[in-house]
C-alpha cells in the first residue's frame, strides 16, 4: 500500500470526527448517562448457555453496585453483543466497541478462538479486553491491554493434584480431559504436579466436547487399573462420565476439576456423582462474607437457583470492572493503568484479587476441598470414601 498519506489523512479526519462526537457527548454525559462496558459473548450457538450464565452474574453485581451509589454517582451498565463465540463476529464486535466512544472497556469473549482473534484489534485500538474466562496461557500475551481474572491452570491444577494424591492417597491415576485448549493445558499442569507428588499417571484420554458415550474410553481406563479417575471436564460431560463409569462397574475414587461445580452436575449425574471429590474456589457454607453475600443475593434474584462457577466468574468480573473504573475513570488508557493499581478487590474466587502486573493475571485463587454427600456439595471431612 503506497498511499500512507491518504490513510493518515482519513484516519485523522475520522479521529477528529470521533473526538468531536466524544466531546459533545462527554459534556452531556457527565451527569446522567451510565458508564458503558462492552461484552462480547455467546447468546446463541453451541455455547449459548454460558452467555446466559454470564448475564445472571453481571446483573446481580450491577444491582449491588447501583445500590451502593454506582461509580462516583454514575450508573454502570453493559452492552452485550452476541458473538456466538465465532471469531468472525468477535472481530466485528471488537471494531464496533473500539470505535464507540461510550465503551470504556470490554469483557469476554468466551472461547479462545473468538477472544484471541479480537485481541489485536483491542490492543491496537487501545481498549482493555478483560477476559475473565480465558485460561489460554497465551491470552494475556496478546498485549498490555489484555487482562484476565481467569484462574490460571498453573495455579489450579496443582491444588487438585494435591487433593487427589496427598489427601486422598491416590497413587495411580487415569486422567480424562476435554480436548480443548483449556483441557489440554490443565491436563499438562495436573500431570506434572501429580508426578511431583509421587503419583503415577497410568493413562490420559482426551475427548471432544460433543462426546456422549464414554463406555469404550472407560474400558481403556479399566485396563490401566488406576486407583483414581481425574475428570478435567465441564459439568455436563463430567456427569456423563461419572454415570457411565459407575454403570460399567468402575468403583474407583473420582476427583474432578472445579469446572464441574454446578447444581447441574448433581442433577445430571444423580446417584453416580455421590462421593465425587472436587476442588472449588468457594462453596455454600464458606464463611467468607463475600461468598455469603453472593450466594444469598443470587438465590434471591433468581428464585432460589444455586449459582455455579460461571455465575461466580461473571459476578467477580463485573465487580472488578467497577473497581477498575472507580480508579481509572472513563479514559481507556487510564483504565488500563488502573488494572495495575487496583488492590484487594473483594472476590468470590480469589478472596482478595490483585493483579500480577507481569502476567496480567490474578494469582492465589481460594481453594476448598469438597465432596458430594447425599446429593449435595459438602466440605470434605477427611474421611476416605
Amino acid at each position, binding site marked *: 500500500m503506497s498511499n500512507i498519506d491518504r490513510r493518515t489523512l482519513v484516519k485523522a479526519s475520522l479521529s477528529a470526527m470521533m473526538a468531536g462526537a466524544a466531546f459533545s457527548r462527554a459534556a452531556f454525559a457527565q451527569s446522567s448517562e451510565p458508564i458503558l462496558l462492552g461484552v462480547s459473548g455467546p447468546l446463541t450457538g453451541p455455547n*449459548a448457555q454460558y452467555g446466559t450464565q454470564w448475564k445472571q452474574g453481571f446483573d446481580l453485581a450491577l444491582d449491588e453496585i447501583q445500590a451502593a451509589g454506582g461509580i462516583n454517582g454514575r450508573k454502570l451498565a453493559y452492552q452485550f453483543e*452476541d458473538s456466538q463465540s465465532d471469531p468472525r463476529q468477535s*472481530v466485528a464486535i471488537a*471494531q464496533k466497541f473500539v470505535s464507540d466512544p461510550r465503551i470504556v472497556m470490554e469483557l469476554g469473549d468466551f472461547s479462545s478462538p473468538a477472544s484471541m482473534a479480537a485481541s489485536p484489534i483491542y490492543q491496537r485500538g487501545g481498549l482493555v479486553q478483560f477476559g475473565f474466562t480465558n485460561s489460554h496461557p497465551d491470552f494475556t500475551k496478546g498485549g498490555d491491554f489484555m487482562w484476565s481474572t481467569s484462574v490460571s491452570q498453573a495455579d489450579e491444577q496443582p491444588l487438585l493434584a494435591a487433593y487427589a494424591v496427598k489427601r486422598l492417597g491416590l497413587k495411580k491415576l487415569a486422567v480424562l480431559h476435554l480436548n480443548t*485448549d483449556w483441557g489440554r493445558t490443565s491436563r499438562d499442569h495436573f500431570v506434572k504436579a501429580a508426578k511431583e507428588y509421587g503419583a503415577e499417571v497410568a493413562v490420559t484420554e482426551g475427548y471432544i466436547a460433543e462426546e456422549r458415550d464414554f463406555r469404550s474410553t472407560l474400558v481403556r481406563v479399566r485396563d490401566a487399573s488406576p486407583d483414581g479417575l481425574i475428570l478435567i471436564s465441564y459439568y455436563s460431560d463430567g456427569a456423563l462420565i461419572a454415570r457411565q463409569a459407575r*454403570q460399567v462397574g468402575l468403583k474407583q475414587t473420582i476427583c474432578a476439576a472445579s469446572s464441574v461445580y454446578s447444581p447441574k452436575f448433581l442433577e445430571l449425574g444423580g446417584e453416580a456423582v455421590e462421593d465425587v471429590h472436587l476442588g472449588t474456589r468457594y462453596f455454600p457454607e464458606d464463611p467468607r462474607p463475600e461468598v455469603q453475600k453472593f450466594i444469598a443475593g443470587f438465590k434471591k434474584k433468581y428464585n432460589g437457583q444455586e449459582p455455579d462457577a460461571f455465575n461466580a466468574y461473571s459476578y467477580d468480573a463485573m465487580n472488578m470492572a467497577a473497581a477498575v473504573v472507580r480508579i481509572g475513570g472513563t479514559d481507556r488508557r487510564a483504565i488500563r493503568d488502573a488494572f495495575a493499581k487496583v488492590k484487594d478487590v473483594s472476590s468470590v474466587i480469589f478472596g482478595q484479587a490483585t493483579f500480577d502486573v507481569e502476567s496480567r493475571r490474578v494469582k492465589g485463587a481460594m481453594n476448598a476441598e469438597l465432596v458430594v454427600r447425599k446429593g449435595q456439595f459438602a466440605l470434605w471431612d477427611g474421611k476416605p470414601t
Partner: protein
Amino acid sequence: MSSWLDYTINGLIVGNVYALVAVGLALIFGVSRLINFAQGSIYLVGAYIGWVAVVQLHTPLPVTIIVVAVASALVGLIIERFGLRPLQNSVRIAPLLATIGISFVLDQLVMLTVSPNPRALPSQLPDIRFQIGGGTIGPLDLLIAGVGLASALLLFVFLRYSKLGWAVRATAQDRDAAMQMGVDVNRVNQAVFGIAAALGGVSGLLVGMYYNQIDTAMSLQATLKGVVAEVVGGAGNVPGAVIGSLLLGLVESYGVAVFGTSYRNLFAFLLLVVVLVLRPNGLFASARQAPPEPLTGTFIAPSRPVRIPRWALLVAAGLFAVLPFFPVSFYVLQTLINAWLLGMLALSLTLVAGTIGQVSLGHAALLAIGAYTSALLSLTFSAPVGLAIIGGGLMSAALGTALISPSFRLRGHYVSIATLAIGEIVSLVILNWESVTRGPIGISGIPPLSLFGYELISPISIYWFSFIVMVVLALLQGRLLGSHLGRSFRAIRDDDVAARAYGLSLNRYKSLAFIFGGFAAGVSGGIAAHLYSYINHETFNTQQSILALTVVILGGLGNVVGAILGAVALVGLPEVFRIAAEYRILIYGIVLLLLVRFRPQGLLGTI
C-alpha cells in the same frame, strides 16, 4: 482378550442408539430420495416433549412414549406439508436445503423456549444392571434395542404386506408410474414422514433417558451420526441402516481401543468415505436397485441469470473501493472485510458446486488448510506473509483436490455427504496431529498481514487488501467461466453422460475446478489467519461450510457476482439484526426456507 469382548459390546450398544435415528432417515430416503437433515431436530423436539411429560406431568413410561411419538409425528406432518410438499416439482437440491433450514428453525425454537441449559431426563425404568463380560447393560439398553428391532420389523411388515406399504414402495421405485397407477403420492409421503418423525422423537426421548441429559446442541451430532450410519448401510435400506449403525458403533469402539478416545469420530467419518468410494450405494444395496440419482442433471435449478450491465458492476466496485474515504466506522469496514473473506470462499464454492455441480458441505476444510499452512509458513519458516498466503492457497488447492478426488465418481447428494465427512476429517486431523498443528492449543502469535515489508494493520488497509484480492479472484473466475473450460464445466454439470460422450474427461475437469476453487478458499483462510492472529481446530467449522453454501445459493449457483452479493448480504444481515440477538439464527433459517421456496435459482440466477 476380555477387553475386546467389552469393546464389541460397547460398540453394539452405541450402534443401537445410532440405529434409532438412522432408521428414520433411511425410511425417508427410501421414499423421497431425500437426506433429511431435520431428523436430528425432530429427535431434539422429541427429547424435550419427553422431558415435559416426565418431569412436569409425571407420565408413566408407556404414556410418555405414546405422547412423544404422536407429538413428533405431528411435527413431521407439518414439515412435510408446509416445508417439503411445495418443493415437489422443484429441483432436487431444494428439499435438501429446506431440511437444513427447517433444522435451524426447530433447534432455535426449542432453544428459545427452554433455554440452552442442559437438563436431566430421568429414566423411568428400574435401575438394574446385568453383567456381560467386563461391563454391564441395563433395561434401557434392552428397550432401545427392542424399539430399534421392533420398528425395523414393523416397517418391514408394513412395507411388504400392507396396501399403504405397497404404495410406499411403488412410490420409491418410480414416483411417476405410481401416480399413474392411482397411488396418492402425497398420502404416502405423509405417512412416511409421520412414521419417521415418530421414530425420531422416541429415539430422542430414549437417548436422553439413557444419558440422563438433554440439551439443544444434541441435534447436529445425532443427524451426523445417523446420516453416516444410513449411508454406510445403503441409503433407503431400513435393515441396512440398522446394520450400518451397529457397524459404525463397532468401528468407533475399536478405534478408541486402538488409538484412543480423541480419534473416535475420525474413524466414523473415514468409514463413511471408504464405503462411499468402494460401494457408493452402501454396503447392503442390491444390485438391481435403480441408480440413486437421475442420470441427467436436474439437481440444480436451470434458470436465466440476471444480466447486470458492466457499467453497474464498475460503479459498484468503484464505490466499494473508495468507501474508506468516506466517514464510515471501522466496524462497517470490519464487517465488509468479513464479507470479502466470505466472498472468496463463496467464489470457490460457487465454482465447485454451481458450475461443475459438486455441492460441497465441507468447504470450511479448505479454509482451515489454507490458514494453517499460511500461519505455519510464516511462523516456522519466517516466510513473508504475502508469500505464505499464496502458499496456503496452493496447499489448499493441492490437498483439497487430492482429498476429494476419490469421490469424483459420486453424484448429487452423495457428493455432499462425502464432502461433509472430509470436512470433519480435516478438522479432526488438525486436532490430533499435534506435532504439526499444535492440536487443541492452536496457533497463536501469527504475524499480522504485511505486503513488501509494510504491515497492514489499520482496518482501512486490510479492507483494501482483502477487497483487491477478492476482485482479482472474481475477475479470474469470470474469465474462466467465459472460456471453453467454463463451458465444459457446465456441460458436465448439466449432463455428465453426454459430456463424457463428447470426450470430456470428467475427473480431469473436476480436478481443475477444485484446484482453482481450493486456491481461492485457501487464500481466504490464509488472510483470516493473519487477521485473527490465533486459530485452532474450531475456527473453521461446519457452520462456516453451511453458511458458504447458503451464500452461494442466495446469489445463484455458479454466479460470480451473485456469490459476492450473497456474502455481503449474509454477513451484513446478522449484523443488522444484532438487536434481535437471540432470534438471529431463527431469522436466518426462515430466510433460507423462503429463498428455497420462492427463488431456488438464487437472487441473480444460475449461470
